[in-house]
């Protein structure tokens, strides 16, 4: 969990994933695992030499803010990636080592309705173009973990573990840590063009609805979520079969959903001559807030399913 804590607390907004990438690379080097970095900044690990190519991706980036205007002790920003503006009021952010507080003046879902109070009247060491990220605070309970950016970092953590433990039999597996997922999957698309896999499984986070007032059927610690379709990708029936068979073998029960969310599978599956793709997701409460919650059993179950796919 130390590794996941480090990943979760690290700052890595879309397009600025350096710190997160470095942690991942360090971990790969520590375990003597060969890797590649491409033009976009994706990190690729290739294992196995089966006849079919399988690409499994997890993204490194999180949503954040980019400074557009500095007004004495207050910042105006634009959002990097999609984030529900109306739920940000009161959230704390970190920018250049300083702490700021988001205030949503009109309570609207409009980025121009918020400013960041840097709580100082002295000269602010912040310039236009600087990135602000939600304040971190990883913590572990008996069955849950919580922190920021689990939507990306928990999946990177899962992928790293799977890389270490896997011994691919039928596939040549390309494990890809992608950039700019929150910006319509730009990193994943480029990686897919390069790798040109036969199958692609995209790891994402799925909003869970297991709290008062939420509607839906996804809960924490009830298994990884098989997305039959989302806003940008309809799962290929063969990929669905691969995932379902592996889950059965691993004795893991999957939750199923027709999701209202997006994924980097959207741009990916339209690349080259078309790629058979699907999304396997980790249930997460309060996605894109500074304190997301995920289930520890789900992390383990997801690893089991992925290992069973590969072997």
């Amino acid at each position: 969990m130390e590794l996941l804590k480090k990943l979760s607390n690290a700052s890595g907004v879309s397009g600025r994933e350096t710190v997160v990438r470095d942690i991942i690379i360090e971990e790969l080097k520590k375990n003597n695992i060969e890797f590649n970095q491409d033009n976009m900044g994706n990190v690729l690990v290739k294992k196995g030499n089966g006849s079919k190519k399988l690409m499994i991706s997890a993204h490194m980036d999180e949503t954040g803010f980019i400074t557009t205007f500095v007004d004495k002790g207050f910042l105006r920003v634009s959002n990097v990636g999609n984030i529900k503006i109306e739920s940000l009021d009161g959230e704390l952010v970190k920018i250049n080592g300083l702490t700021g507080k988001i205030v949503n003046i009109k309570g609207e879902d409009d980025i121009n309705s918020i400013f960041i109070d840097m709580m100082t009247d002295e000269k602010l060491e912040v310039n236009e173009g600087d990135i602000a990220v939600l304040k971190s605070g990883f913590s572990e309970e008996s069955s849950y973990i919580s922190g920021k950016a689990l939507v990306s970092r928990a999946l990177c953590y899962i992928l790293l573990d799977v890389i270490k433990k896997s011994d691919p039999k039928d596939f040549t597996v390309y494990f890809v840590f992608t950039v700019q997922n929150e910006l319509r999957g730009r990193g994943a698309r480029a990686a897919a063009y390069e790798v040109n896999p036969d199958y692609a499984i995209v790891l994402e986070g799925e909003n869970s609805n297991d709290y008062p007032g939420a509607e839906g059927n996804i809960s924490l610690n009830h298994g990884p979520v098989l997305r039959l379709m989302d806003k940008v990708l309809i799962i290929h029936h063969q990929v669905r079969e691969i995932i379902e068979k592996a889950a059965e073998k691993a004795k893991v029960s999957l939750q199923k959903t027709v999701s209202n969310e997006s994924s980097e599978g959207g741009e990916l599956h339209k690349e080259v001559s078309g790629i058979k793709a699907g999304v396997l997701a980790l249930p997460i409460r309060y996605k894109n807030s500074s304190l997301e919650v995920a289930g520890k059993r789900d992390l383990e179950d997801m690893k089991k399913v992925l290992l069973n796919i590969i072997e």
Partner: protein
Amino acid sequence: MEEKEFLKILTTNFSPSGREDFLYEEIKKAFQPYGEISISNINNIYVKRKGSGKNKIMLMAHLDEVALVITDFNKDGFLKFKGIGIDPKTLVSQEVVIKGKEDITGIIGIKPPHLMNEEEKDKAVTFQSLLIDTGLSNQKLKEKVSIGTFAYVKRDFTELLHNNVACKSADDKAGVVSMLSCAKELEGKDLKTNVYFVLSAQEEVGHRGAKSAAYEIAPDIGIAIDVTFDSGKFGADDRENKLGGGPSVCIGPNCHPKLRKMVIETAKECNIPYQVEVEPGNTGTDAWDIQIAREGIPTLLISIPEKYMHTSVEVIDMDDIINTGLLLAKFIQKLDDESLEEVLCF
């Protein structure tokens, strides 16, 4: 195979976005005499009619149709669902077929009107207020149906007056049939051009198949064939398409101006009725993605006018389908003699 027969087979069967392979056998049967058939990773279907030369023309009509998808189980055999690109008002009091492990009949009904309050009576229904009734227990239902299973409105192929027909998914099976019509017209003719008939996947969810199909085939010219709105009472008032007026040729930045002029010349020369419509930007069809594939592809959009789009009673004139196929065939033959470089240069 006759055009009306083929349209009936296509529209009374089911090919939701993502599962165009459901109709692969029927497509193979129909197009077998006209070219080599294959299916891509994401279910684009290619029919390649070899020519003696190097030029490639790609025709594309999408095989997928708008559909319903099961999103959750309610109680007592009732299912929650949603539709992509479908107006819930069109689904009230309909019989549906759920394509699970076997076909299951469902009924979408509404609350008895005398139990509705004033607001419910005036407002349109929403997907949240609709359920599919299967008359089965949840236990039996779950053996055959799961979240993500597709469903469609059961609609017989209905013949109206004057060669008009009403059916579901004329968008874009009418386009597919016009490609068959074109293939029939070209049969036996010696062409230098290689003609690719593409039945694209997932157009209705964002023309997702077109990009990879165009990448795969890398044609010199791409022609998308889709349906378009008529300009009647329930149609669009920003154009003048009439059922029976022939294929509608699109004018706008998505369409190569020289090619478009040539196709209209062809229609005039061969006495084929045609219409025109203007699209100032995104045509919302496969043509949009074809044009920017690879290094860019000169593109045309030809559309068959239709009434009541995305309902289960789309109305189309069979003569328009046949004339579209004829126009495409004559256009391909005209281009066959020309030097493409001359035609396409700016």
